[in-house]
């Protein structure tokens, strides 16, 4: 393990690790603004068309959304477990934790796909098959447009995360990382948690609307 040397532009491996983390934080700042713009737009319309958005929200699949929230939160636990394990030089178990993380992510996508199918049967997919139900007016379609754009972009981010986790899991298994150097896992952990947090915002925006009281 002593053979790991920092890249040419760094004085020490620590400096390289800190720099990589700051890089991910800076990237996540851009992501906050990216999703922020979309969620901001959603709330503008939700305030403008509160009643219609409540009507639309009734058709969102609360149970499936809740299952997915549980899956994703659990995956963040296994992600953090992987980091803790590699810090103790337990590479094989860390790799297992990473595979588990990816598996939970894939399960999320599976449930999401099933949910999209249900949405399709419910005629709530704009462009493809969209029918206004009684008392619903055109802004209901805006709700579903945001739903698909937002959850679609989230799923894209999650897919990228799953691929990255699988790659790192393989690397971890082959013994590339150790307590001395595991910066990529920590950096990816930041990304994974971010994707998780985005989902929490989307869940809060989409599913509970109009269901309380």
């Amino acid at each position: 393990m002593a053979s790991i040397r920092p890249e040419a532009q760094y004085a020490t491996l620590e400096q390289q690790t800190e720099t990589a983390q700051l890089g991910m934080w800076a990237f996540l700042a851009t992501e906050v603004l990216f999703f922020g713009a979309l969620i901001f737009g959603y709330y503008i319309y939700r305030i403008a068309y509160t009643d219609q958005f409540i009507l639309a929200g009734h058709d969102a699949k609360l149970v499936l959304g809740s299952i997915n929230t549980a899956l994703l939160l659990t995956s963040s636990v296994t992600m953090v477990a992987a980091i803790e394990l590699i810090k103790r030089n337990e590479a094989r178990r860390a790799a297992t934790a990473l595979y588990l993380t990816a598996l939970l992510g894939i399960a999320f996508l599976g449930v999401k796909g099933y949910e999209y199918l249900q949405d399709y049967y419910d005629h709530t997919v704009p462009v493809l098959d969209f029918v206004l139900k009684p008392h619903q007016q055109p802004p209901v379609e805006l709700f579903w447009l945001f739903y698909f754009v937002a959850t679609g972009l989230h799923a894209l981010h999650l897919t990228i995360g799953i691929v990255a986790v699988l790659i790192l899991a393989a690397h971890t298994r082959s013994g590339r990382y150790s307590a001395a150097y595991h910066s990529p896992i920590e950096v990816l952990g930041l990304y994974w948690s971010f994707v998780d947090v985005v989902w929490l915002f989307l869940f809060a925006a989409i599913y509970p609307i109009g269901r309380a009281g």
Partner: protein
Amino acid sequence: MTAIASEPGSTYLTAESTIASWLLTKDHKRIALLFFASVTAFFFVGGFAAALIRLNLIEPAGTLLGPDLYNRMFTMHGIVMVWFFLIPSIPATLGNFLVPLMIGARDLAFPRLNLASWYVFNISGILALYFIIAGGNDTGWTFYAPYSTLFSNGHVIAAAVAVFVNGFSTIMTALNFVVTIHRLRAPGMTWFRLPLFIWGIYATSVVMLLATPVLAMTLLLIALEHGFGIGIFDPALGGDPLLFQHMFWFYSHPAVYIMILPAMGVASELIPCFARRPVFGYRGMAYAVMAIAIIGFFVWGHHMFTAGISLFSGIVFSFMSFVVAVPSAIKVFNWTATLHRGRISFDAPMLYALSFVGLFTIGGLTGLNLATLPIDIHVTDTYFVIAHFHYIMVGGTVSAFFGGLHYWWPKITGRLYPEMWARAAAILTFLGFNVTFFPQFILGYLGMPRRYYAYPPEFQVWNVLSSAGASILAIAYVMPLVYLGWSLLRGKQASANPWHATGLEWRTSSPPPEHNFPRTPVVTDAPYRYNPEDGSYVTQDGAANG
């Protein structure tokens, strides 16, 4: 005196010479040159469109292009110049070259990301060329909905995707700069010893990081709506076209600061060096840069005074626009105060820097006119606006870009450029620019609207004058291409520090070796320790007249 510099050995230019060594390089200096090539090419693409626009406007009937082609031409000019020249111009070229050198680092934090940024930029450039060649886009660079989403028959999606992809390149470069400036400063290079160019690049990078993703989301929604009928901004569904404008300008107003802050940084390097005086109010300059970057996020509504926002938000945005003028004015006063009692020499970089200050001041002051609600209603969407932002972007940013290019040319290439030719080009740029754009203030005030291919005959005199100025400007922009090209081959060898300047970039050979410094420099001094009494100076690593 030049002990470090005269060490023999290979430079970053000669270290390897295969084509692959350039296309796969991770050296920030080589990547800077790659960006120079790309950005220069797009400068002439955008300039070509500008030339056609000015030719079309020589006669009132506008028969050269006609309405449809004219729309496509000003759209092409706007998109190419904003995203493919102005935004990357100073950061991706001079910034890429200088950030590690000025802070005493061996490279940027993420060299592979830096190279990837160049490739992504070129991919977006190819997409841009595609939408141009396929027939162009007629929405203007602003892509306003619902025209862009429901009605335009131009290549809206291709144009939007080109700009979307371009944003990745912007973000990659900006992220690299922010992280590098935070983490890779040489020992002793504290925040308040940073050269003001670094402050300018830092502030710009922060704005890029926070504003570009909003543009990305906006363009994504536009493309989805135009292509698939996903009508987020569609009024028929209750969608709000004003929301588009809010999102677009939330990016595009800060984008103005993305373009001008690095230019301010360049001017802040050039003016102390050629006045041989420390910059006046260094800390004020650094705070002002950050203040502009931050306040710049809260003024976007001044693009929408006549779009139907409430009077109250109009007043708030107007007020904020006046507030952002304060740090801008601080900078102008400080540059001017730096000149006071200086030993000024009028070399080409200084001529460009002085042009920058003067033209930026005119652009900035007319910005206050536009931020004033009643005046804005009179001149909205007229040539007054066009003249205003060209004074900032062309008079300001492009002048600074050329000034910086000349100033650091010896460092980049190891060659001196012909001074007299360069001075002539600088003066010609200043004259050509003013002849082109000052008449547009008058045209706008008289009521000539922007984006029209034809106009009433009484405006012809000013339009012909403007077009004549544009031809002078064209010559002034082609001149450096010729004499700098000549200097690459035949120019005199440059010493390590031909301008007797204080920055760390002058403490290594011209051109620098592959990892910049034989030994990591230790910074002991503030920047700009020039002495106007005898022109002497102390470099940032403490060498007197190094």
